[in-house]
């Protein structure tokens, strides 16, 4: 996976709320930077581009020298000749991140976007955040017919995952779905998870969850697998 990354909505919200990322409206970002660009900035960008090319060249020369040594061939040869005839470096566009301080971060606009995301899937986000707080890695669940796939963080427990499904607390799970999901999950060495945000003024009848909850929400989870008999 390389840049640009394609993230889930819940991942974006989580990153922003954890102050690990900011939301930037693309057009406004570019306008903001380029409206204030100065001659010094242009020189900075040009220099960065030149430095990048020189770095890449140095790497290529070093690689060539190492290869020569390996093949027991002379190292000192006409470098200019080589550079002209045998190296290919693709120049990169100037890096706009160099000027990122020019962009004035509009926190309120960012919060509006986040709120729209949350209105769209508030309970799903609560479940996402809860599992993240337990150090699970979460991926989109389409491949297994669920909302997410959850991977326990510990690499020693590499092979088992959960197929996470979100339900409202008073929503009917639909037993046919449970059978289908449970049988599939068991067949691929996973469990089918029923995850839900507890609603109503229930006493805390769920075993106390780890902290990091939004506004005191509690999550109820039930793992389903085929019993293996019958």
């Amino acid at each position, binding site marked *: 996976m390389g840049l640009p990354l394609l993230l889930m909505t819940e991942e974006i919200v989580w990153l922003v709320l954890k102050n690990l990322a900011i939301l930037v409206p693309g057009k406004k970002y570019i306008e903001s930077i380029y409206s204030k660009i100065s001659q010094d900035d242009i020189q900075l960008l040009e220099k960065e581009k030149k430095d990048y090319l020189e770095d890449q060249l140095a790497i290529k020369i070093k690689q060539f020298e190492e290869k020569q040594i390996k093949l027991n061939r002379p190292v000192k040869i006409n470098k200019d000749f080589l550079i002209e005839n045998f190296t290919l470096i693709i120049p990169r566009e100037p890096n706009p991140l160099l000027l990122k301080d020019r962009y004035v971060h509009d926190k309120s606009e960012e919060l509006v976007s986040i709120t729209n995301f949350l209105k769209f899937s508030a309970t799903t986000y609560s479940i996402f955040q809860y599992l993240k707080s337990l150090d699970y890695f979460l991926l989109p669940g389409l491949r297994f017919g669920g909302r997410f796939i959850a991977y326990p963080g510990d690499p020693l427990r590499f*092979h088992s995952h*959960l197929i996470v499904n979100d339900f409202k607390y*008073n929503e009917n799970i639909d037993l*046919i779905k449970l059978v289908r999901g449970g049988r599939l999950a068991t067949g691929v060495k996973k469990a089918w998870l029923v995850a839900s945000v507890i609603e109503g003024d229930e006493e805390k009848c*769920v075993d106390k969850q780890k902290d990091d909850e939004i506004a005191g929400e509690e999550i109820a989870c*039930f793992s389903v697998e085929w*019993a293996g*008999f019958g």
Partner: protein
Amino acid sequence: MNQNGLLGQVKQNLLHYNLWSDISEIKLPNYTLIQGKPKEPLSSAAESHNEYEIIYPIKLTDSLTPKQLNQIFEELKLEKGNRLPKIICAILNDDGTIVYYNIYNGLIKPKKN
């Protein structure tokens, strides 16, 4: 006891088809569950040192919500003293077939590969 009712059918199936033993009912405030002993332990010794399994019978067409599941575990806790890690859901279709699914309270611990 009406052998053709939900409880009766599941008890019969466990006893005669799956060869369970020591089958009895557990009456909770809002639910009636079945307790029994499988022919062989269903899972590793660590998990089933108890040897008895708890079955919740339900029709395929019935409703089951996360709230109800929570309630079952909670009522069982009051009955048994502590919150059990798992129950088995017995799902009955109108054609007489019964399927059994484990429902664990919480996130299941990953099994070693």
